[in-house]
């Protein structure tokens, strides 16, 4: 195992600087550090990492829908070009009132990611400018990447299928029937 010197330094420095504002900080594995904070502090954490620690590049802003716990989890992924370390900063957002701070003054490319999240998850970023439509056009349903959006039902309602196609048919079984092959027990549940 490689020594995780820089990774541990990041964790220690951030913990020392932000004290209680960092909810959780740990080294996931080599080159990957995970921090958890809240929406009030996310801007200062990102600014600190960029200006003081040299995480110059924002790779991505991603989102996870934890529908059971009634929260969205935003993940900001930063990259340190010299030390070659990724840091993931996770923030929880309330699912019913999803509002997060806008950070496109720190990294301009965040604008695109935030517009995508606004479109696909319905997360509002305070003061985000830019056209409302990024990928979808004239969308008036639930944001499609939310887990309570029923894709199949939407498809069945809105599109016409060519008759003769039995959708979600068990392909493996059909082929097996035709060739006389026996499907082993463990493979059955994957055969869809």
């Amino acid at each position, binding site marked *: 195992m490689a020594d995780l010197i820089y990774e541990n330094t990041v964790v220690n420095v951030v913990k020392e600087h932000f004290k209680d504002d960092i909810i959780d900080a740990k080294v996931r594995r080599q080159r990957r550090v995970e921090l958890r904070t809240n929406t009030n502090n996310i801007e200062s954490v990102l600014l600190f990492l960029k200006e003081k620690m040299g995480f110059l590049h924002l790779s991505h802003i991603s989102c996870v829908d934890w529908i059971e716990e009634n929260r969205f989890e935003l993940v900001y992924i930063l990259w340190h070009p010299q030390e070659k370390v990724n840091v993931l900063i996770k923030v929880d957002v309330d699912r019913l009132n999803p509002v997060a701070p806008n950070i496109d003054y720190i990294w301009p490319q965040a604008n695109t990611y935030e517009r995508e999240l606004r479109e696909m998850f319905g997360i509002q970023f305070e003061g985000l400018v830019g056209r409302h439509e990024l990928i979808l056009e*004239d969308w008036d349903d639930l944001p499609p990447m939310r887990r309570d959006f029923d894709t*199949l039902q939407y498809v069945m309602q809105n*599109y016409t299928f*060519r008759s003769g*196609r039995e959708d979600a048919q068990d392909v493996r079984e059909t082929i097996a029937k035709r060739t006389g092959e026996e499907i082993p027990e463990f493979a059955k549940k994957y055969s869809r």
Partner: protein
Amino acid sequence: MNYVLNDRESSKIVEFIKNFARKNSLWVLAYGTGCGAIEIPPTMTSRYDAERFSVRGAATPRQADVLLITGYLSVKTLKRVIRSYEQMQDPKYVIGFGSCTINGGMYWDSYNTIKQLDLYLPVDVYINGCMPRPEAVLAGFAKLQELIGKGEANGWKHYKENLEWYRQNQQKLIKNWKMPDYNW
């Protein structure tokens, strides 16, 4: 020389000449929609050389004869495709390319791609496969040429006659319909 061509026969000959010219000069609109567009460069360039079958690329819809729908069409793209199709000059032909255009293919449960192309545009030839190899594409072109030669590739006439039906289907998907009636 007592024999004189009557109207029917002479129009037959004219039709034959017209169809001969049309089938031997297919200009394909360079418009790639889905992943199938990646099969077009090998079809057109040295390896498979579609030009020897008189198939050539055209830069704009005005000059093109054939619209290749190369794969899945999202609703957003469908709007652009309809405009491009209607800007093409008659006679014009559509080739549906890949299983996505036939029945949705592997995107059958996607919320944003259409499942059956011929509800929205009149398709003359389908090429199946996911994605079709250049040989299959060439076979599709050959089929189209055969149909044109027989005078059976009449999708564009069909589209004009049944414009209302097509419009209904299109407008069901495209909610914000801000287009002229027919985009000349």
